[in-house]
């Protein structure tokens, strides 16, 4: 005890002695462990940590159903693209990845992968892979990819715990962690094998929000910057970052309006926004959108508002006079609003600020996509959400959510306001689009956790205090034996106590039902890797239909390696990843016209389709057909979307042609156009001879439950190349042109010789692009970035991954250099958007006009009414693309383009018009300079 006496004297002045005192007091406290209270405290910590560990493990293993039941494989469609890019990244390194021009997709356009994807997921997986390799764990990259999503789900539970702790208390944090670990809404996108952006993004989203709330609560710059980095990670991982950059300003705005403005908020928002914005610009796919796109303007507006607020406070402080200040305020506000409105108007009108994208519109107005953009509406996960799927994904959380909101409103603070806003906005979005249930899930879990935790806490405190009172009451009873002096609350005591117990049991019952439901949903609904179909056989045994992989593997092994495969866009990623063949369209929907062209080919008669396919240089056509197995999500059932998307661009295709009295049928009563279109023919070729079900006529379609209407299908230009064992995938080979003499004689095409020099120049140019840009043909994009970055990086002999500081330096340099070349971006932009441009007005009846007619898409157009041609502004690019193809085909000895030429002026890329374009839009000085520099570069 003597030691403690010296404490106040020496404690603050003498450090060593104070530390000894501390040590001794520590010792004392450990010695006084006998005291019960301390023990419970440590016990609580132990329990908390072990619960968290268990939740961490649980979140991981509950997502492994699919691995145990099937195998360690990638699911769905998009993950295959992610897997393929990750594979590329780990094999070729980050530099190559960043400048990857992929000629295997979007033939003949190709795709600039490095510039059109969110690299967060791939880089994360690659870093984990390299880390494990470094630690000498010889894992396969596939295993890393398969387990990335569960791993990040586990991390999300930890973030949820801290978030819950921040907005409520540790109890709520624990409950939130448990709820989110097994919530089906989140599991649906994070089971093992679902290697998709969302798996990482939800973690990043929650982390950003948590760090931001922490920053607002503490006013610490460090937390604000941390949240900016969280935001950067989110931006690098998923397009859903737009939600963050709109929700946080909204939240700040609400705080400002409700008078909760504080220095903490100022520091948190400014640090987060400024750094977050700068970091986000480093992602090439996002680029300058933070200052240019309408979707990001809210954040910037709030940023300026914040500065204004701060400035006004300062002025108010300087003036001291209230009247003067009000007058000034009025002037300033009107000026600011005016200037802001003018800036926004000018920005929008001049095109500097881009208008909102279709997906964004469809969020605000659920009916928008249905009317305007069939390609968005055709994706099932973009549909409005049904009540049943809310129930399916949230279960009891749906009822706990309002209760949690009640508790939040009862204890209103900056943090609870945030979670309330997050919950309400995301719930609205979840109602608009099915896939956004995912974004709402963390909020719902957190708010429900508050409800659960607060309720249980209230009930247990009720129980505990009552038991204490009753204890003392009983001692008193024994001492005195008198019961009349009981106070009023004591009279209702048994009822309250029992009620509390009942309610507690009720709560636990509900929670256990939730756990059961989640496990069931996870194992039954969300753990099948849609690429392998499983069914129950007649004897209850499991039958596996592995037709997709059968077909893709066939493509991979038994077709020429440069074969081009046409299929509906759903299967594009899988064909490139598993079949390793070039596809015409894939799941990335940046070019509507290209997809529409495929849709048009599928819905045309065979002759017309053949010409379109020839012009696209297609060798194989792949269709998915469920008529034998009863697999319902096949191409016939998706066919109307092909018609719609095709018809949206090419007015020759009209939806009513395929319907009978507004009804979609495939049987005898079907529309004649339907019975003879390419898709129908390819799906049902020779199906009329097959008996699928006992007691039914041959040609009975089990997916639609009807006998097909056209059993005698003859194919003229195509032949069956392969059909899988259950007929789910059918592949057709396109016959090479047999009698082309007629076409040649009627359209003799002689490339004018005088333009050949120009062409040569282009060819040279293209060769350089090919060299520097990994066989890029259709675009000049990428090459230039390579040039810049090479120049920049060459100054630094250290490798990219050497040290953080050098990376940062490079990032800054890269940014500054890129600033000089903004014109480059515009060029890239025009190329990227080329597909959606409106190229001119076709005569509606002209079958051979392949001209897109989506009028709203662009202002640029070509006035030629007969032929397809891109706008003059893009001729330079297009002709160089085609020239590259042409020369490449010459070099490689293939005659693909020459054949296209023989189709005359009806195809997409006749050489004559290419040459014409080439002449009209000669290579500019800049272009020549670029080519020369590239030549130099490649010579080095």
């Amino acid at each position, binding site marked *: 005890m003597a030691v403690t006496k010296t404490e106040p004297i020496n404690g603050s002045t003498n450090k060593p002695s104070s530390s000894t005192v*501390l040590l001794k007091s520590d010792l004392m406290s450990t010695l*006084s462990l006998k005291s019960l209270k301390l023990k419970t405290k440590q016990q609580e910590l132990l329990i908390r940590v072990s619960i968290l560990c268990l939740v961490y493990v649980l979140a991981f293993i509950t997502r492994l159903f699919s691995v145990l039941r099937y195998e360690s494989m990638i699911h769905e469609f998009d993950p295959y693209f992610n897997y393929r890019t990750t594979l590329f990244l780990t094999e070729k390194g980050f530099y190559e990845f960043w400048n990857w021009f992929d000629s295997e997709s979007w033939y003949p356009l190709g795709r600039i992968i490095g510039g059109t994807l969110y690299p967060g997921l791939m880089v994360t997986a690659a870093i984990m892979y390299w880390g494990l390799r470094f630690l000498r764990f010889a894992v396969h990259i596939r295993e890393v990819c398969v387990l990335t999503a569960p791993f990040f789900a586990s991390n999300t539970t930890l973030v949820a715990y801290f978030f819950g702790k921040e907005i409520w208390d540790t109890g709520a944090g624990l409950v939130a962690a448990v709820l989110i670990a097994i919530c089906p809404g989140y599991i649906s996108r994070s089971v093992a094998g679902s290697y998709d952006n969302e798996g990482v993004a939800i973690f990043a989203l929650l982390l950003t929000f948590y760090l931001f709330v922490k920053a607002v609560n503490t006013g610490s710059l460090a937390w604000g910057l941390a949240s900016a980095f969280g935001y950067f990670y989110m931006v690098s991982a998923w397009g859903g970052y737009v939600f963050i950059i709109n929700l946080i300003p909204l939240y700040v705005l609400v705080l400002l309006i409700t008078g909760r403005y504080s220095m903490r908020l100022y520091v948190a928002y400014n640090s987060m926004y400024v750094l977050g914005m700068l970091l986000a610009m480093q992602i090439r796919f996002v680029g300058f959108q933070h200052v240019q796109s309408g979707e990001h303007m809210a954040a910037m507006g709030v940023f300026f508002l914040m500065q204004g607020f701060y400035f006004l406070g300062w002025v108010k402080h300087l003036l001291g006079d209230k009247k003067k200040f009000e007058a000034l305020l009025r002037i300033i506000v009107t000026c600011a609003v005016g200037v802001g409105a003018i800036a926004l108007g000018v920005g929008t009108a001049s095109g500097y600020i881009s208008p909102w994208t279709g997906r964004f519109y469809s969020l605000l107005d659920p009916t928008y996509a249905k009317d305007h953009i069939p390609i968005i509406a055709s994706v099932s996960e973009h549909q409005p959400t049904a009540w049943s799927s809310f129930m399916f994904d949230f279960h009891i959380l749906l009822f706990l959510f309002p209760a949690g909101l009640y508790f939040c409103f009862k204890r209103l603070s900056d943090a609870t306001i945030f979670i309330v806003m997050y919950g309400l906005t995301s719930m609205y979005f979840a109602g608009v689009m099915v896939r956004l249930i995912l974004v709402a899930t963390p909020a719902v879990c957190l708010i429900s956790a508050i409800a659960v935790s607060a309720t249980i806490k209230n009930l247990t405190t009720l129980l505990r205090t009552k038991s204490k009172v009753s204890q003392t009451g009983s001692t008193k009873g024994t001492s*005195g034996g008198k019961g009349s002096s009981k106070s009023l609350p004591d009279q209702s005591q048994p009822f309250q106590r029992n009620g509390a117990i009942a309610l507690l049991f009720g709560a636990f019952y509900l929670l256990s039902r939730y756990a059961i439901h989640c496990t069931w949903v996870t194992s039954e609904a969300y753990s099948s890797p849609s690429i392998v179909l499983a069914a129950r056989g007649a004897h209850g045994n499991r039958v596996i239909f592995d037709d997709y992989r059968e077909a893709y593997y066939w493509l*991979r092994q038994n077709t020429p390696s440069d074969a081009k495969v046409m299929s509906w866009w759903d299967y594009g990623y899988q064909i490139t990843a598993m079949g390793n063949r070039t596809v015409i369209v894939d799941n990335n929907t940046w070019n509507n016209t290209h997809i529409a062209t495929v849709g048009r080919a599928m819905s045309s008669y065979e002759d017309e389709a053949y010409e379109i396919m020839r012009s696209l240089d297609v060798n194989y056509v792949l269709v998915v057909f469920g008529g034998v197995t009863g697999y319902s999500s096949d191409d016939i059932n998706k066919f109307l979307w092909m018609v719609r998307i095709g018809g949206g661009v090419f007015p020759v295709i009209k939806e009513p042609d395929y319907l009978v009295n507004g009804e979609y049928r495939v049987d005898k009563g079907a529309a004649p156009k339907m019975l003879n279109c390419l898709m129908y023919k390819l799906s049902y070729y020779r199906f009329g001879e*097959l008996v699928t079900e006992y007691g039914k006529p041959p040609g009975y379609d089990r997916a639609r439950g009807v006998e097909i209407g056209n059993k005698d299908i003859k194919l003229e230009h195509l032949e069956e190349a392969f059909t899988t064992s259950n007929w789910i995938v059918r592949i057709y080979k396109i016959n090479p042109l047999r009698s082309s003499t007629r076409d040649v004689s009627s359209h003799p095409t002689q490339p004018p010789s005088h333009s050949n020099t120009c062409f040569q120049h282009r060819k040279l140019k293209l060769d350089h692009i090919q060299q520097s840009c990994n066989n890029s043909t259709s675009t000049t994009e990428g090459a230039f970035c390579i040039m810049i970055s090479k120049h920049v990086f060459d100054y630094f002999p250290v490798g990219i991954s050497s040290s953080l500081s050098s990376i940062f330096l490079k990032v800054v340099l890269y940014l500054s250099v890129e600033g000089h070349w903004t014109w480059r971006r515009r060029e890239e932009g025009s190329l990227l958007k080329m597909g959606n441009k409106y190229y001119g007005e076709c005569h509606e009846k002209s079958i051979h006009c392949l001209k897109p007619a989506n009028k709203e898409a662009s202002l640029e157009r070509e006035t030629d009414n007969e032929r397809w041609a891109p706008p003059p502004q893009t001729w330079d690019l297009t002709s160089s693309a085609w020239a590259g193809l042409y020369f490449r085909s010459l070099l490689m000895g293939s005659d693909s383009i020459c054949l296209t030429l023989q189709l005359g002026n009806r195809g997409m890329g006749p050489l004559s018009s290419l040459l014409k374009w080439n002449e009209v839009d000669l290579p500019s000085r800049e272009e020549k300079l670029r080519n020369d520099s590239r030549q130099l570069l490649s010579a080095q």
Partner: protein
Amino acid sequence: MGFRFDLLLLVTTLVLLSTITPTVLSDLILSKVDRRIDLTSQIVRVTSTLKVENAGPDPVSEVLLTFPEIQAKDLAYLTATLNEGKGKVKNPGSNLLINVAKPEELPPSLIFHSVSLPKALGEGDSLTIDVFAVFTHALRPFPEEITQADIQLVLFQDTAHYLSPYAVKVQSLTVKLPKARIETYTKLENTNIHGSDIKYGPYENLPPFSYAPIAVHFETNQPFAVAQELVREIEISHWGNVQVTEHYSVVHQGAKSKGEFSRLDFQARPHLRGASALRNLVAKLPPRAHSIYYRDEIGNISTSNVWGDPKKTELLIEPRYPLFGGWRTTFTIGYGLPLQDFLFGLEGKRYLNFSFGSPINDLVTDNLIVKVVLPEGSNDISISTPFPVKQGQETKISHLDVAGRPVAVLEKTNVVPEHNQYFQVFYRFNKLSMLREPFMLISGFFILFVSCIVYMHVDMSISKSSASYLAKLQWDEVRATIQQVGSIISQCLSKHERLEASLHDLSRTGDVQACKTARKTADSLFKEYSKELKPLLSFLQSSPQATQILPKVEELVAKEKELQERLIAKHSTIVDCYEKKIGGRELENRVASHQQKVIALKQEVEDLLDYIEEI
């Protein structure tokens, strides 16, 4: 056609040869030659029984075997054994040594192999040799492209006369064909057909290098499964497992398929439409094989079956799709085997005894690479094989390896099932090296935990004099003090309980004295506690960090004091009452006020205590 042309050329040179150069090689003659060619599978197996006789004066110790160049390049396997009379079981160890020989003066379009005899053949002695030769790719599909509905026809070409540098007295040839249609065959003199066998001969007294080309064109619907490349990786783990992984790249080298493939026809009439398709392969794995898998680059293949009995394990694998002519596929099979069946010790060394070729039946392997991955730390590696192979060495880095595992690499082209013989890899390995990897894991975790402990216990702050650091130190002190206060208060509370208990005892026993002493001891204890509390409180008052919490602490102390007083008062009242024998209602009336106050205070104190504990 090139093939034909070659043959013609060969024949002409042979004819020239036989006329110009008489038997200059040696004086051997073949008194009897019996040849049987088995064409029932894609692998052509030729068994020849030669009766060799020395007609010259000099003893001869070598017999030359001759193959035309075009055949020699397909020759996969060649053995010669001594046939010591009929009915005797051949001894597998009695294979004769065979070398490639290049006698001069003979045209390069003939390849010679010389068989060394165990003992030289004297004048007039004779000897019988069995020569067994295996050829691959000797059957040529003709026509080369067929549709799905066509049957597969193949062409086989050879000579009816035994090609030899020696004169042959009597010879005959039997060609065994699969039981199916024979399209055409070359008809020479003495040609007979028995069922599916074609017999040529006997021919007598033919000069050296006599040649009579024959061609057989017949139907065979056997798929020609050829592994263009096969990599077998055999990984030894001294923890008791041999893991075998085989990567196949298989192609159907029969007649190429053309035109469309119709699944409908294939399903409806599988034996007419697609008769020659390769549907499945059967692999005979060693007994006790376990954890068998079958997959390819894009995942598991679900069409396989395993049967096991104590003698062998049979694995039936179906490719993802039926292989038609010219179609290819790649896949991987893997299995684990018990170590003790394959690893043996010999003079301080260990050796692995494993079979060389692919376990799949009737598979021709164009290029076989066998890799034996030895455990890390193995040294002194040597390999022994029953036939010559290309050998090499590399390293492989696997789980938790530092230096990498040594890998013995064996390469051989043109491998047939006859090559499935055992080879041995000898190496030295210290048992202690086995513990290296577990030790690394353990030490890794150990370091992790130690660093955690160090992190928790070491003060990591950079500046020891910054304001925030000092504030943190002070705050720690304040917290420690508050904890002490809390513990003292809780001790007080326990004393209260004891006082209450003494009252309880009083009501049972009526021992007033004991009760009084209890009160006295409690009183003195309380005084001591308040003494202890004083310095703590004064410290808290002086500390700037404690201003927030101080009022609560003070309130707690005050309330507790009041509670003490109340309790003592109550205690003394009750004791008084007992002394004065006042009971029942009276006592209760007197105590009631105290009692209520005590309960209320107790509640408050506990709440405050909880609050303080929360900090």
